[in-house]
C-alpha cells in the first residue's frame, strides 16, 4: 500500500512526459486518453489510499522515496527527504486535487479539442497535478516548496497558454512575479524556521514548537526569543500564503490570470492552487497557534479581502472576472476561518468551494464556448431559454456560492461563521464582516445570474452548445458534489487535535446569531430582485431599458480592483523600470571606462602634436626655447 502512496504523483508525471515527448504527433484521441486516464488512475489510487488511511491505526501513512539532502546548524542535522505524508488533511487535499482534477481534465479534453496545441495543454495540466500532489503530500517544507514553485510555474504556463496574445503574456508574467514575492517571503520563513528549530520537517517543527511552549510555560514563553521567532516565522509563511491564495496585499494577479483557458481557471485558479495558501496555514497550524497575533492578522486579511473582492465582483463586466473575484472572496472566508482557529471549517469550505467553483467556471466556460468566446455579461442575457442545461447547472453553482440552506456551501460557510463570534483571535467585528460578505456575495451572484441568463438576449449570434455526453457528465457530477458535498463527513479532529482551544473569555453568543447568518443571503436576493430588475426583465414593448455597463468613476474604480494595480504600478513597477532604464549603461562600467577615456584623451592630444609637419616642430622648438630662457632669466 505504501508503494501506492509513493506512486501517486507519477501517473500524471508519466502522462506529462509522454505528451511532451510526442507533442503534436499525438492525435487528439490519443492525447486525451493518455492524460485523462492517468487522472482516472490517480483518482482510483487516491480512493484506495483514503480507504487504507481510514483503516490504519494512527490515521497516518508515510513513505520515504529518497534522501534529498541534509541541513545542519549548531543544534544538529535536519534530514530533508523526499517523503510523502498522508493524514486527514492531505487526504482531503488529494481527493479534491485528483477528483476535481479528473473531472476538469475530462471537461478540458473536449473543451480544448479544437486547439492546435491540445497535447501541450493537457501536458501542462498533468504537470500541474504532479506539482500539486507533491505540495500536499510533502512531509517537509522544502519539498512543499518544490511543489509550491511547481504549481506556480504551471500556473504561469497555463495563463500564458495562448502566448501569441501580448496581454496573456503579461498576465502570466504578473501572476508569476507577484506570487514569487510571496514565495520569497515564505523562503525567508523557512530560513528562520530552520535556524530556530534545526528542522524543516513539518511534524518535527510542530512538536518542537509546542515543546518549547510547554517547557517555558505559556506566560514566560510569549516573551522569549523563540516566541519572537515563531511570530516572524508565522508572519513570513503568511506572506507566502497570501501570494499563492491571492489575498491582500498580493491579490492583484488573480483577476488577470483569467486570461488562461477556462479549464485552467477552474482547476488552478479556483479549486486547487489558490487554496494552497489555506493548506499551508492549516498544515502549519501548530506554529500559528503559538502566534495568536498572526492568527488575528490572518483573520483580518481574510475579512478585508473578502469584502474588497465582493465589492469588486459587483462591478465586473466579464463573467470570468466576476468568478475570479468571487474566488478571492471565498478564500477570504477560508482565511478568516483559519485565523479564527476554525481549522476544520476552513478546510471544509476549501473542499466545498472546490466543487461549486469548479462547476461555476466550467459552466461559464461552456456558456462562453456556446457564445463564440463572448465573455462580456452585458452582451449575454436571456440564455435561460437557449441554454437551459447550462443555466440550471450555473444556478446550482450559484446557490451553493450564496450558501442557501441545504447546499454544500451552506454547511461549510455556516461552520465558519458560527465559530467567529466567540473565537479568541476573531470576534464580533469579524463576524459582521463575514455577514456583510455573505450579503454582497448573494447580491453579485444575483446580478451575474440576471445579466447572463435572464432578461433580453443581447448576443447577436445564436448560441451553439457543446452537447458532448462526457463534457456534460463531468458537469453533472460536479453539480451533484456541489449540492451534496456538504454531507461528506470530514473528520479532522486528529489532525487539529493540538488546536482545540478553550476561549479565554467566554463570550455569550446572542441567540439571533444563527438566524441572521441564514437569512442574510435571502436579504441579498430580495434586494437584487428589485435593484437589478431591469437586468432580469425583458423590456416592455415601446419602453427601453438601458442595459449598459455603468462607466461611473466609482464603478470603474471597483472594476479595476480598487486601485491596487495603479498603486503598485506607481510604487514598485515604475520605479524599478525607471531605475533599470536610467542605469542601463551600468554606472560602475562608466566610472571605470572614464580611465580609458582619460588615456584615450592623452593619446589623441599627443597624436595631434606628432603631425609630421616641420613648421609645427620648429615653432614648438622655438617656443620651448623662448619659454625656457624666459623662465631661467626670471
Amino acid at each position: 500500500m505504501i508503494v501506492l502512496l509513493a506512486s501517486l504523483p507519477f501517473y500524471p508525471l508519466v502522462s506529462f512526459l509522454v505528451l511532451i515527448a510526442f507533442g503534436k504527433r499525438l492525435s487528439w484521441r490519443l492525447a486525451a486518453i493518455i492524460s485523462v486516464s492517468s487522472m482516472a488512475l490517480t483518482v482510483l489510487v487516491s480512493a484506495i489510499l483514503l480507504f487504507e488511511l481510514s483503516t490504519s491505526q494512527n490515521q497516518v501513512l508515510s513513505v520515504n522515496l529518497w534522501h534529498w539532502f541534509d541541513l545542519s546548524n549548531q543544534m544538529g542535522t535536519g534530514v530533508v527527504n523526499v517523503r510523502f505524508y498522508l493524514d486527514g488533511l492531505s487526504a482531503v487535499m488529494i481527493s479534491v486535487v485528483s477528483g476535481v482534477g479528473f473531472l476538469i481534465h475530462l471537461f478540458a479534453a473536449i473543451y480544448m479539442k479544437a486547439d492546435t496545441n491540445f497535447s501541450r495543454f493537457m501536458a501542462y495540466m498533468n504537470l500541474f497535478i504532479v506539482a500539486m500532489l507533491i505540495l500536499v503530500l510533502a512531509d517537509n517544507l522544502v519539498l512543499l516548496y518544490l511543489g509550491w514553485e511547481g504549481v506556480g510555474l504551471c500556473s504561469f504556463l497555463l495563463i500564458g497558454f495562448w502566448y501569441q496574445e501580448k496581454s496573456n503574456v503579461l498576465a502570466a508574467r504578473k501572476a508569476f512575479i507577484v506570487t514569487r514575492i510571496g514565495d520569497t517571503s515564505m523562503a525567508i520563513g523557512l530560513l528562520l524556521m530552520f535556524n530556530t528549530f534545526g528542522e524543516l520537517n513539518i511534524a518535527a517543527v510542530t512538536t518542537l514548537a509546542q515543546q518549547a511552549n510547554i517547557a517555558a510555560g505559556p506566560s514566560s514563553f510569549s516573551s522569549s526569543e523563540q516566541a519572537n521567532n515563531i511570530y516572524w516565522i508565522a508572519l513570513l509563511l503568511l506572506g507566502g500564503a497570501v501570494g499563492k491564495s491571492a489575498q491582500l496585499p498580493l491579490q492583484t494577479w488573480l483577476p488577470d490570470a483569467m486570461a488562461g483557458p477556462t479549464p485552467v481557471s477552474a482547476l488552478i485558479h479556483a479549486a486547487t492552487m489558490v487554496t494552497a495558501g489555506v493548506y499551508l496555514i492549516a498544515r502549519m497550524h501548530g506554529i500559528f497557534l503559538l502566534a495568536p497575533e498572526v492568527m488575528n492578522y490572518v483573520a483580518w486579511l481574510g475579512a478585508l479581502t473578502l469584502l474588497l473582492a465582493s465589492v469588486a465582483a459587483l462591478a465586473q463586466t466579464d463573467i470570468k472576472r466576476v468568478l475570479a473575484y468571487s474566488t478571492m472572496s471565498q478564500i477570504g472566508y477560508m482565511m478568516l476561518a483559519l485565523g479564527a482557529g476554525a481549522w476544520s471549517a476552513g478546510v471544509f469550505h476549501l473542499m466545498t468551494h472546490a466543487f461549486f467553483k469548479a462547476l461555476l467556471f466550467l459552466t461559464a466556460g461552456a456558456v462562453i464556448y456556446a457564445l463564440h468566446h463572448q465573455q462580456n455579461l452585458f452582451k449575454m442575457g436571456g440564455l435561460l431559454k437557449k441554454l437551459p442545461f447550462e443555466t440550471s447547472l450555473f444556478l446550482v453553482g450559484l446557490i451553493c456560492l450564496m450558501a442557501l440552506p441545504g447546499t454544500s456551501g451552506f454547511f461549510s460557510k455556516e461552520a465558519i461563521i458560527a465559530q467567529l463570534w466567540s473565537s479568541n483571535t476573531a470576534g464580533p467585528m469579524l463576524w459582521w464582516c463575514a455577514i456583510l460578505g455573505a450579503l454582497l456575495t448573494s447580491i453579485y451572484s444575483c446580478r451575474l445570474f440576471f445579466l447572463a441568463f435572464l432578461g433580453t438576449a443581447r448576443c447577436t449570434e445564436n448560441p451553439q452548445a457543446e452537447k458532448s455526453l462526457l463534457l456534460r457528465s463531468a458537469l453533472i457530477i460536479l453539480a451533484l458534489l456541489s449540492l451534496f458535498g456538504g454531507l461528506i463527513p470530514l473528520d479532522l479532529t486528529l489532525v487539529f487535535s493540538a488546536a482545540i482551544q478553550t476561549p479565554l473569555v467566554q463570550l455569550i453568543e446572542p441567540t439571533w446569531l444563527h438566524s441572521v447568518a441564514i437569512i442574510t443571503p435571502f436579504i441579498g436576493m430580495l434586494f437584487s430582485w428589485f435593484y437589478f430588475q431591469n437586468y432580469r426583465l425583458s423590456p416592455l414593448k415601446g419602453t427601453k431599458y438601458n442595459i449598459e455597463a455603468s462607466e461611473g468613476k466609482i464603478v470603474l474604480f471597483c472594476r479595476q480592483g480598487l486601485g491596487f494595480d495603479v498603486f503598485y504600478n506607481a510604487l514598485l513597477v515604475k520605479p524599478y523600470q525607471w531605475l533599470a532604464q536610467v542605469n542601463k549603461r551600468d554606472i560602475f562600467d562608466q566610472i571605470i571606462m572614464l580611465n580609458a577615456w582619460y588615456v584615450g584623451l592623452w593619446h589623441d592630444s599627443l597624436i595631434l602634436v606628432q603631425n609630421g609637419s616641420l613648421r609645427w616642430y620648429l615653432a614648438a622648438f622655438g617656443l620651448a626655447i623662448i619659454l625656457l630662457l624666459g623662465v631661467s632669466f626670471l
Partner: protein
Amino acid sequence: MTVTLIMLALVIAGALAWRAETYWQGSAKWLALISLALLATVFAVFVIDYAINHNNDFAQLQVLSRVNWIKTFNIQYSIALDQLSIVLIALTWLLAIICALVSWHEIKRHVGFYYFNLLLTIAGIIGVFVAVDMFLFFFFWEVMLLPMTAIIAIWGHEKKHFAALKFFIFTQVSSLLMLVAIIATGYFHLLQTGQLSFYYLDWLMLDIPLSMSQYLMLGFFIAFAVKLPSVPLHSWLPDAHTQAPTAGSVLLAGVLLKTGAYGLIRFVIFLFPQASTQFAPIAATLAVVSIIYGAKMAFAQQDFKRLVAYSSISHMGFVMLALFAFNSMAYQGAIVTMVAHGLSSAALFSLAGMIYQRIHSRNLADMGGFWQSAPRMGGFALAFAGAAFGLPGLANFIGEFLSLVGVFQVLPEFAVIAALGLIGSAIYGMVLFQSSFQGTPTQDIIDLQPRELIICGSLLLMLLAIGLYPMLLLKFSFGA
C-alpha cells in the same frame, strides 16, 4: 604524472588539430571532440583508480607530482588534487565537450587555430585547478587567459576587439596585484623559515601577523573578485560574454568564473583565515550588492547574452556571500551553486548561440513567439531559465537554498537581502523567456537539431540529477 600528461596531450591535440585542418577540412573539430572525450575518460579513470589504490577519498590535497622547476627561487612544478578541484575539473571536461559541440557549425574562419586555442584554454584551466605551487598557479592563470582573449578577439561578434582588450586589461591588472601578493608571501616565508617557498602546503603552515596578512589577502582577493566577478569590478564580463563566440561565453561563464571562486576558497579563505574573517563584512556586502545589482541590470538588458551575463554576476554573488559566511552548509551551497551555475549559464549561452545562428541577432526585440516553430527549444529555454531563477528540482535551487540556510545562521540580514534576489531573478528570467519564446511569432525558426538536442538534453539531465539527488555532490566535504 597522468594529470600532467593529460594537460600536455591537450596542447598536443590542439596543435595537431590546427595542422590537420589545413590538410583535411573539418578534421579539427572531430579531433578536438575525440581527444576531449578520451582525455576526460582518462582523467576519470585515473581519479577512480587512485582513490581505490590509495584507499583515499581526496578529502585532503593529494600531491601528485613535485619536481624542481626554477631552483634559484625554489619554484617547483607541483600539482595536487582534492575533492574541490576534482569536481571543478569534471565540470570543465563536461563544458569543454559542450564547447566543442556548440562550435561545430558556428566557427567558419581559422577553424584549426580556433580549436588549438580552445584546447589550450582548457589545459590552462585544468592547470589552475591542480597547481599547488603559487608560481605555477600564476603561470597557468596566464595560460588560461591568453588563448581566451584570442578566442574573443578573433571569433567574437561586432565589438570583439574592444571586449577582448577590456577582458585582458581587467584580468592583467588584477593578476598583477596577485603576483605582488605571491612574491610578498614567498618572501615572507623566507623571513620566517629562512627559505624562499611558493609551495601552497608550506604556506598553509605560515603564521603571518594579521597586519600583514590583511594586505596579502587583499591582493589575492581583488584578483579573484575581478574574475568572479563582483561589483564594482564586474564590467568586463558583460562585454566579454556578449562579444565572445558561443563556446567562449560557455567557457567564460561556466568555468572561468569558477576559477575566481576556487581562488577565493583556496588562496584567500584557507591561506588567510583570520584576515578573511575580518574582511567578511565587506566581502559579504559586495556579494549582496552583486546579487541585487546583477539581477537589476539583467532586467534592463535587451541583448540575450548580455542579460545572461548580468545574471551570472547575480549568481556568483551567492557564491561569494556563502564563502564569506564561514559556515559549512553555506560552503557546500557555494560549491553546488558553482557547479549549477556552470551548467545553467552554459546552457543559456548555448541556447543564445543556437538562436543567433538562426536569426543572426541577439536582440530580444527581434525575437518572440519562437515557441510556435521551435517547441523543443522553448521547453529547454524554459527549463534553463527556470534553473536560473532557482526553480526547485533543478541544481541551482539546492545551491542557493543551502547557501542561504548557511548564511542565515551567521549573517541573517545579508541572507534576507540576498533572498530578495529570488524576486529579481524571477523578473529577468520571465523577461528572457517571454520575450524570446512567447508573444506574437515574428518569424519561424528551425527546431533543435540532433546535435543541439544532445547539448541541451545532457545539460538538463545534469541539472535535474543534481537538483533531485544532490547527494551526488554533497556526500563530499570539500575539505570544509
